[in-house]
């Protein structure tokens, strides 16, 4: 296992910049999630670490060794694809043993190691099957076993759960998370599913338009988003315009006693949980009601015409056009510089 460091990583395709000067370290043994919207550069970053893309600028280091121009086959990187990318003409065992075969490991040993990995992933009984006969979840386990078999410097997972049903995704997420934590494999986990990233990763890097917006533990990313983009992308937030002065933020329709580093114009990121319904002095007009099973999601307009997202427990308790009182829990908001 290794530290993986990206130094000022930039990748352009003609006039398009896919990755723009990213500095990032995946620490030895940690699972780093990379999240962001489509086209933000997360897959390009992953492919650059794997060696399939050569950066336009910057370097890729494995344990401080520059591998920027090392071809993929010499990097010892495990890659798990969204589409599984298994070798259909081989059995499951042959798939898992393939990397060991390329390393020149004797047949008996690679068979034993492949069987051990299959047992670890609870798919030992599939060893002699062809990948095309397996379910999506089984194929993804085989893909993971194949990538782990070579004991990679770094394991790269490119949206491995996409396409699986919700229940299987939840189960596989827990299993893979536990396995990677046990094996202490340095892992880059690319996903567009922030819940998945929150559940599995030690830290999360949020990308937008090829730039790194924020990197940190899931709780920090959620509670203290560094930028409006992160506040909006991770969970849902409402950004309220205000003016900070002497430890208070004046939102126009209410004042909040919050920690603002500087005085002046600020934005206050407030998640649905920051709003307490049916109490307080703020009058909000309900404009939309969506029943989501375990909660009801409301859209409401504040006195300054800002639309906020609210969560309520009740079923059928609210109607479009209702005026409801609100308060804001200052412990649950985060102040950002106005940008």
């Amino acid at each position, binding site marked *: 296992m290794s530290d993986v460091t990206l130094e000022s990583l930039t990748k352009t395709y003609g006039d398009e910049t896919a990755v723009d000067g990213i500095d990032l370290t995946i620490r030895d043994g940690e699972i780093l999630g990379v999240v962001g919207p489509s086209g933000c550069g997360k897959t390009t970053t992953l492919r650059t670490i*794997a*060696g*399939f893309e050569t950066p336009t600028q910057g370097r890729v280091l494995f344990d401080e060794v520059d591998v920027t121009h090392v*071809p*993929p*086959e*010499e*990097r*010892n*990187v*495990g*890659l798990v*694809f969204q*589409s599984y*990318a*298994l*070798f*259909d*003409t*081989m*059995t499951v065992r*042959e798939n898992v*043993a*393939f*990397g060991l*075969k*390329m*390393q020149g490991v004797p047949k008996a040993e690679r068979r034993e190691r492949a069987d051990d990995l299959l047992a670890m992933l609870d798919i030992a009984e599939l060893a002699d099957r062809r990948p095309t006969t397996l379910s999506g979840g089984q194929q993804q386990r085989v*893909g993971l076993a*194949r*990538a782990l*078999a*070579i004991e*990679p410097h770094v394991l790269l997972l490119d949206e491995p759960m996409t396409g699986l049903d919700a229940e299987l995704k939840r189960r596989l997420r827990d299993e893979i998370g536990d396995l990677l934590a046990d094996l202490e494999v340095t892992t880059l986990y690319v996903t567009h599913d922030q819940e998945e990233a929150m559940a599995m990763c030690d830290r999360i890097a949020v990308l937008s338009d090829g730039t790194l917006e924020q990197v940190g533990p899931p709780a920090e990313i959620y509670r203290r988003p560094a930028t409006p983009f992160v506040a909006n992308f991770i969970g849902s937030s409402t950004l309220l315009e205000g003016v900070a002065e002497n430890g208070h933020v004046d939102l126009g329709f209410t004042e909040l006693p919050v920690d603002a580093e500087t005085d002046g114009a600020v934005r206050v990121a407030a998640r649905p949980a920051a709003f307490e319904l049916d109490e307080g002095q703020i009058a909000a007009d309900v404009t939309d009601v969506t029943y989501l099973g375990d909660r009801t999601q409301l859209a409401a307009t504040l006195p300054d015409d800002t639309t906020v997202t609210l969560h309520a427990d009740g079923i059928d308790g609210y109607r479009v056009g209702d005026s409801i009182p609100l308060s804001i829990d200052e412990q649950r908001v985060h102040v950002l510089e106005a940008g």
Partner: protein
Amino acid sequence: MSVRKSATASVRHLAALASTTARPTTERERERRRIAVLCLPFFALAIVAGFVPLAMLVRISLAEDTIWMAGWSLEAWETLATTPTYRRVAWNTLWFVGLATAVSVALGVAVAHVLEKYDLPAKRVVVAAVSFPIALPGIIVAYLIVVLLGRQGLVTNAVAVATGGAPLDLASATAITGLFLGYVYSLLPRATMVLRGTYAEINTQAEEAAHTLGASRWQTFYHVTLPEIRPGIVAAVILTFRSGLAIFGTVLILQSHRVVTLQIHEETSVGSYSPDVAAAIGLVYVAFIVAFTFVGLRFVDNDAVEI
């Protein structure tokens, strides 16, 4: 059930099938009618241009008279079976076309690989150049070979200038190498077109996975790509080999190697006129093509690979 009852049941079943196909009431029957309508021209053509001439060949190979069935004889077949010349022609044809097929398919794999795997600056020009020989008559291909490798040929004279040799000694247009070049030139586009289609369906991420697992470019091709394109290779071999067997114009002009098409031409020419033997050769040829195709197609679906 007696044979008679069984036959009656089959006829009734076919009649019912024909009736429902003509006047379909379910979607399945309408689909069957669409299939019948779409396939009708082909079956009509197959009967007129295939089965009728084949039946005529059978008759000619067995009849003493070339027009009427005036008595019958196995003489042509006996001649074919016992004359060493025909066995030599068969062997000449098989090894020569087999080798030309192997070279064409190997080159086709390389060309298809380049066309499908890489972004070429003038891809359309390359595709047009590669597919161009399909449109050339064999006689023109022979002419090209003469222009390149004949006594006055460009390549012949270039080599002569470079080596100091005599063009007369270096000319190979009418040698077997010239003919071989003509065959490969004609067959390569067929192999390439088939293989391009196969290459387009390759799982490129599986190849990338192989790279990350330590496989070199060659190992990835051997272990991952080759098994995936194997059905395409088999299809290319079948198509190319059959096309190679049918080449006539080029071999007629260059005359450097006696293959089956040239032999049939000889058997129907003034001087050695033996239409019954020509017909027998033709039937053996057709039987071989059919058997070869069926055997070849068995390998298309068999994707087992030793790891």
